[in-house]
């Protein structure tokens, strides 16, 4: 279980997260959504420990995230970012196994795990020997996902994983992600700015605005019982894309 308790974070005097509390249950897939600058990516950075809160605490299964506990907690999390964040000097395979090697996994264990993940992410075997510059955007995200899942983490954190992809590849990967989330049953926290994607992938949608949570519920609730004028506006703005002008 992940808890944010009264978390506040500001950059250069601008409040990015404002006294926010949120709890995620194990096995849940939660989509964080909201306009640019609403603080959704900042929340992920806080969870991974890339930044620390000004006030409040982030707790994972009862352990508070601090400078000293961060290293251990990170190894229980997989993290995927928009353009993959793959290391350009390593092949796809080397990127995926980097932590397993650091932790001294024997070669056959690494190979077995790699094969499981390759099948799961539906990558062709020859892709793994290429360098990131030799991969397409979709392939890079699949490799990045393999790297995030390599140590079999309890928590998977994805920051706009499909944001840079074109619609066809994006739809394809959405299907695969959904299948993978269902198969693995891990706690997933996914940031997206696309309501349809949030609705498709998330069991639960958390809509953020100006560092606060506007509404926390499922897609149906957002449509039918918007908690504020902002939620109504946000849903309407996104909704128009599917149904066209009325």
């Amino acid at each position, binding site marked *: 279980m992940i808890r944010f308790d009264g978390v506040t974070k500001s950059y250069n005097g601008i409040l990015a997260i404002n006294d926010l509390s949120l709890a995620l249950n194990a096995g849940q897939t939660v989509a964080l959504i909201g306009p640019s600058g609403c603080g959704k990516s900042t929340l992920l950075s806080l969870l991974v420990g890339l930044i620390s809160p000004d006030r409040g605490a982030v707790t994972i299964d009862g352990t508070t995230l601090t400078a000293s506990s961060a290293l251990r907690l990170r190894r229980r999390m997989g993290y995927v970012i928009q353009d993959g964040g793959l290391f350009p000097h390593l092949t796809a395979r080397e990127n995926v196994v980097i*932590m397993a090697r650091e932790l001294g996994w024997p070669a056959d264990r690494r190979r077995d795990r790699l094969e499981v993940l390759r099948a799961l992410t539906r990558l062709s075997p020859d892709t793994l020997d290429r360098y990131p*510059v030799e991969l397409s955007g979709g392939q890079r995200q699949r490799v990045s996902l393999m790297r995030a899942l390599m140590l079999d983490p309890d928590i998977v954190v994805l920051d706009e994983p499909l944001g840079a992809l074109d619609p066809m590849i994006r739809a394809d990967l959405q299907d695969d992600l959904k299948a993978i989330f269902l198969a693995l049953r891990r706690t997933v926290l996914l940031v997206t700015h696309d309501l349809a994607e949030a609705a498709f992938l998330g069991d639960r949608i958390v809509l953020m605005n100006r560092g606060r949570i506007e509404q926390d519920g499922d897609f149906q609730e957002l449509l039918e019982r918007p908690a504020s004028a902002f939620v109504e506006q946000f849903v309407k703005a996104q909704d128009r894309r599917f149904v066209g002008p009325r």
Partner: protein
Amino acid sequence: MRRYLVCVLGVAACLVLFATGGLAANDELRIGSKKFTESVILADIAVDLGRAEGGRVVHRQELGGTRILWDALLAGTIDLYPEYTGTLINEILAGEAIANEAELTAALARRGIRMSRSLGFSDTYALAVLPGTADRLKIARISDLVAHPTLRLGFSNEFLNRADGWPALRDAYGLPAHTPTGLDHDLAYRALADGSIDVIDVYTTDAEIASYGLRILDDDRRHFPVYDAVFLYRADLFERRPDLVRAILRLEGRIDVPAMIAMNAAVRNDRRSETAVAAAFVERQFGLLITGEGDSVAVRVWQRTLEHLTLTLISLSAAIVVALPLGIIAAYRPRVGRLILGVVSVIQTIPSLALLVFMIPVLGIGAPTAIVALFLYSLLPIVRNTATGLSGITPPIRDAAIALGLTSWRRLIRVELPMASPSILAGIKTAAIINIGTATLGALIGAGGYGQPILTGIRLDNFALILEGAVPAALMALAAEGLFDLAGLYMIPRGLRLKRSIRD
């Protein structure tokens, strides 16, 4: 990781090789010379006499000016060098008001230094005119000048300004009507020959006195101090190798003024090497046949290549070892980084000659001093490129490495340094190329290398000799460039060298 280890071990092996081969042994007689022809010839003669006696003798030629040679002798970096009594009395020991040779010997003895008797000639200031002028105006003595106030005087700037130069001469002879022009010593001869001036100052053994057929005016009031040529040597040398000292002191009283002028002229006008001129003199005077050792161009160039590589490799390796961590600190601790880069940049702005001279009192002359200077100059490009390369890593990559759970040390080793390697390697390459060029200045303080023939070539106006140093130095710089490009193929990860091949 393994490939870095291979490279480091390779460089280390080269270093040991060059360090053992390149640095001087201790059981040898080291003779120094100043940066002018006469000093080099006298030292070469001493070398020949010492070798004929069976000694291991090295000549550390053209170390620089008086101060450098004197300090080197006191420090024991050299054992013997040619000097002039006037220089000792008026410059080196000027504070002690030495009146005669006995006092001079005593003053030297207090410092553990001994002095030979005069080698037979005095190299002092004199005034010279063209023979035509002398005959026409009937001038033979300096005091004759008083009667000819219209004569145009052209003096070297040093002579004009020295206390014992023009001001003292003017007072001694009462020459108030003359206002001399200051000009470069080498130009003075040409100006005299083409008639734009009438009287110049010369050294009594200048080769040009012979080549222009100049008439020396008699110093009839004995104004100019005596600058007898002598050898200075360390007292402990005499205890160590009395045989060698005695052999060299056979030169006392053997060179007269015309003989010295002839030898200077043979080098400066006939383009013969000092070594050859010295050998010819020793053969004539002492019947010793000197066979030149290591005389072929190939052997000389090879020897200097080893010296040059020693300077460059040791200083560059040390710079890499020091600059890499500094660059890493500069990248991750911006405030300390600014300080580091500031200090390293300031070092870079110190003129190389000044830096070399500053370090002589501390480290003496020779390769170690040059290596320290080259080391200092190599720091900036490596520190800066390391810091730039590391700072250039984008936040997403940095975040991804942190989020994976890599410790900061493992992030540096596995991700950040490999990604910065193209920049770091480029910095090392720049440092190496600057280093190879700057190392030629090492010859000024006796570090050897390609600078030696360049220095001699400039002094003798010998273009071929300059090329003998400049061409290999340029080739070595090119080779370094090529070598680093090859090293790039090996050390820079392939993924960073590929161009983006897929677009979507």
